[in-house]
């Protein structure tokens, strides 16, 4: 379980996050949604330590991550898997080397064991046999799936996904969403997905936190999101004509 308490973050004069507190439960897909500039990605980066919050704390299973030093954080970070918006695959490495990278850095496994783990992860994301491809030879959807394979290589307890559907066609987006949800249920990970894709919200949003102007504006599930009276959330959810028609 991940808890955040009163997270505040500013860049210069611009306040991005204004005292956000939330709990992210194990084994379900937690979604951070909101319009562009609402602070979703900044909050995610504060949670994983890529940004230091100005105040507030992040707890990983009651371990205060914010107060840890670099060495202590390494231990927590080996339990974190992250899928980046642009996949962030190492472009000088093949698919296999990308997935094997964290195993090389943090495990004492033999080459055979590491290869078996890579093959398992690739099979899990339906990319078996693509070990030797370079990242430049992959499509957008394949890159995301390799990113997921790398993120789960170390059997993470916490999985973070930053806009996993950005730049993907609707069909591939659904494949990625389902994959994230399956992995979450299968490995009981605490999964946090940053998105503004309404298909994802309706498809995998078991716990949804809506951010608006750097504040937590609403929290609920995908079953509740269409029936709320929250005006800002309604404007976000029903921004498209399709969603408006769906409601009618």
């Amino acid at each position, binding site marked *: 379980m991940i808890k955040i308490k009163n997270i505040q973050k500013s860049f210069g004069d611009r306040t991005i996050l204004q005292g956000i507190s939330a709990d992210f439960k194990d084994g379900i897909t937690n979604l951070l949604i909101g319009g562009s500039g609402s602070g979703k990605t900044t909050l995610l980066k504060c949670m994983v330590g890529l940004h230091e919050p100005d105040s507030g704390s992040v707890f990983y299973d009651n371990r205060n991550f914010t107060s840890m030093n670099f060495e202590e954080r390494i231990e927590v*970070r080996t339990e974190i898997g992250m899928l980046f918006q642009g996949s*962030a695959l190492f472009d000088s490495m093949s698919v296999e080397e990308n997935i094997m990278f964290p195993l090389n850095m943090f495990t004492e496994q033999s080459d055979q064991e590491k290869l078996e783990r890579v093959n398992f992860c690739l099979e899990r994301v339906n990319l078996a046999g693509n070990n030797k491809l370079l990242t430049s030879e992959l499509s957008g959807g394949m890159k995301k799936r390799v990113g997921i394979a790398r993120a789960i290589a170390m059997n993470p307890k916490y999985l973070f996904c930053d806009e996993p559907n950005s730049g993907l066609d609707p069909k591939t987006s659904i494949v990625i969403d389902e994959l994230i949800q399956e992995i979450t249920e299968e490995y009981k990970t605490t999964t946090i997905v940053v998105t503004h894709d309404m298909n994802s919200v309706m498809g995998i949003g078991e716990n949804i936190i809506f951010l608006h102007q750097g504040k937590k504006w609403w929290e609920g599930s995908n079953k509740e999101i269409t029936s709320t009276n929250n005006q800002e959330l309604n404007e976000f959810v029903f921004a498209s004509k399709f969603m408006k028609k769906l409601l009618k």
Partner: protein
Amino acid sequence: MGVGSLGIICIISIFLGAVTTVQTAFQLVSDLVPRSVIGGIVRDSSILELSPTISAIVLAGKIGSSVASQIGTMRVTEQIDALEIMGINSPGYLILPKIVGAITMIPLLVTISIALSILGGYLAGTISGAVTPQSFIEGLTTGFDPFTFTVSMIKSVIFAFIITSVAAYQGFYTDGGALEVGQSSTKAVVISCIMILFADYLVAQLLL
């Protein structure tokens, strides 16, 4: 880093020596100064100044821009964030090997450059008739102070450190997109060149 730069270093070194020979011969108008002096001047200027400094400036353009753009691209495509999320010390993982590589290879390149520069001087002097082969070799072997080579190596190590650390710093702190990667790369080359020239003066002042 080293092998890839060998070609350009070979070409510039031969021409540096050749030009030094021709221009020194042009300025030696007095019959009281023996032509063999040309060999000594080519040797000392190659060892002390031309090979380490000109090579470093060329390498700042080649290696510096490559390091800055490589690390800058990794920054803007979140590859450095990915390393940090995994718990890897990204500066140590990305920058340190480059600095170690440069301070190992650049002195070797400068040594090769010195040899080729002297060879270029010898060939230019012989072909143009500015100096006879015997006179050139006589000048080359007379009054050699091994300390000049030590100074040259010290300069190479310092220049190598400047080239890679400035480029890596510029790349690592790139913020934005492709445009900013290009700007970081340009900045890395400009700052490295200025710092190389400043360090060159400082080492000469302190050691000679």
